[in-house]
């Protein structure tokens, strides 16, 4: 290892403060970018959520009016309901199935790498590609899903998947599961590989079968990993936007409207008759942010108490 001697102009400073100066120089670009493109916009969001503004002139401070309006806004409550349903379903499915899949994958199989590679592919694809692809699959007349159902004689099951208000959310949940199962499975798999094999040996000696080993060894030792997966699922569920925006835009007739699509429509779309309600839209985005904060803090508390 070659070590270059350098006695730059900073050499007059004492070593400690020299280190501090270099530290600040190193982080300066990040802090500057952060301040301009994350920090300041976020503070502005806080202010906007307490204002009324359609984009012209200056925002007018209205206190908690936006949140008061929210309480009486039926569309908001419908979006809340759909968001929670989507979040609950994806969280359960995208935790349980990836866990089982990871346990299966963790046994010795020929070609494990191939299965793992294939299962992970959807996670590297954009939401737009996923959305367009599944729109074609779900297409009622010529889409592959209905074609396949008709081919096997199940014509009665063929449905206008994304146009039926009762089916649209489950159909979206399936796409979400398809896209993220591989990612969560890999997180579980990393956790499984960290389990001490002697634990299983001990359980086997005590006469535990595969199911008991799973319940008594795998599930308890994976508690932290499971917590992380659940938390990620909850946050992604509350934040969900891209997939639904691309596939249904919140339709039909708001049946798949979630908080993200509603607020985007209020700010940039055709809600409220073409006049953007920036203040109200931002207030809704604050609700999403607070929901994410709450589950994160709850998870932190739970994991801290466990350890």
């Amino acid at each position: 290892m070659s070590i270059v001697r350098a006695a730059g102009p900073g050499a007059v400073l004492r070593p400690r403060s020299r280190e501090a100066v270099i530290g600040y120089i190193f982080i300066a670009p990040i802090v500057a970018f952060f301040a301009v493109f994350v920090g300041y916009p976020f503070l502005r969001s806080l202010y906007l959520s307490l204002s009324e503004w359609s984009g012209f002139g200056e925002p007018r401070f209205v206190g908690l009016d936006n949140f008061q309006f929210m309480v009486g806004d039926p569309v908001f409550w419908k979006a809340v309901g759909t968001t929670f349903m989507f979040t609950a379903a994806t969280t359960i499915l995208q935790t349980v199935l990836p866990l089982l899949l990871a346990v299966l994958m963790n046994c010795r199989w020929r070609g494990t790498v191939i299965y793992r590679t294939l299962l992970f592919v959807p996670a590297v694809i954009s939401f737009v590609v996923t959305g367009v692809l599944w729109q074609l699959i779900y297409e009622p007349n010529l889409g592959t899903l209905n074609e396949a159902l008709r081919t096997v004689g199940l014509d009665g099951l063929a449905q206008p998947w994304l146009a039926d208000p009762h089916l649209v959310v489950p159909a979206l949940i399936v796409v979400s599961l398809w896209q993220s199962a591989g990612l969560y499975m890999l997180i579980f798999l990393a956790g499984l590989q960290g389990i001490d094999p002697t634990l299983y040996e001990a359980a086997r000696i005590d006469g535990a079968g595969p199911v008991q080993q799973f319940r008594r060894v795998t599930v308890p030792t994976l508690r932290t990993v499971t917590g992380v997966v659940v938390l990620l699922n909850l946050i992604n569920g509350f934040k969900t936007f891209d997939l639904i925006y691309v596939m249904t835009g919140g339709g039909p007739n708001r049946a798949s409207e979630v908080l993200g699509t509603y607020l985007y429509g209020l700010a940039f779309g055709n809600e409220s008759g073409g006049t953007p309600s920036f203040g109200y839209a931002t207030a809704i985005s604050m609700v999403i942010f607070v929901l994410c904060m709450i589950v994160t803090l709850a998870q932190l508390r739970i994991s801290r108490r466990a350890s």
Partner: protein
Amino acid sequence: MTTADTQVPAGRARPRSRPGPAWHSASTMRTRRRIWRSTGYLLLIAISAATVFPFVWMVLTSVRRRDTVFGGGIIPDEITFDAYQRSWSQLDYPSHFLTTLVITTITVAVVVALATLGGYAFAKLRFPFRNLLYVILLSTLMLPVTAIILPLFLQLRSLHLLGTRQGLILVYIGTSLPFAMFLMRAFFTTLPDELIQAARADGAGEFTIFRKIMLPLAAPGVATVVIFQFMTTWNEFLYAQTFLQNPDYLPLQPVLYTIVGQYSTDWPLMCASLTMSVLPIVLVYMRMQRRFVAGLTLGAVKS
């Protein structure tokens, strides 16, 4: 898809219930094992097949003749690359592809450079308010994009950068930096402090220590960040859709978003466009799978 997935619990349960009375005489450990294993393989293959099926279908549809898309078997009788040609000219594909590539390359380069510097400083250098600054930078990681997109829009407007690729690149850099820095910091923390102390004792300057000693050791971390950033920027949709209005400047994702409405009957064209947009990512993924997975799982476990 659904059926394949819901089979998981059912399939797991089956071997458990098999060794009933009917099996009693024949059920040695060997046959039980064999049933276990074949069920497992069946499940793995079924689930993998269900996962890749949409992609296979996409590629197969993209090489069909336009008039033979519907009806008929899954495998096309005749293969043609007409749809790629149509997408190439009608969608002005090369220009959007190039725009995406340029935007992504610049973003990745700047993010990686700045995140490496910052990650090193937060991991290895001591300065006042270090922890406070770090917490502030990371506290916004779970901020939903929809929560800052509106002020970002206003920000770009007041900087006269709205509708420009430069503005979009700046937004990408600004919003990606905290997480990239977090990843780099994680890599630098694993490197031993003694290296730095020894170099300092030898009188090496701080920047020299960073560049000549620590950076080479953090190369795997840099590679992970490059890949992760490449993927997220290439796939980004919402900022591009909101901040760029000029159709000439659009990257691929917003263009792909519009094709369903525009070419609703030309499925080969749509599938060809999707296939081409996915190709770079899938190729990189296949070649550098380990880094990819490391980046994404680390990304996931950030909290």
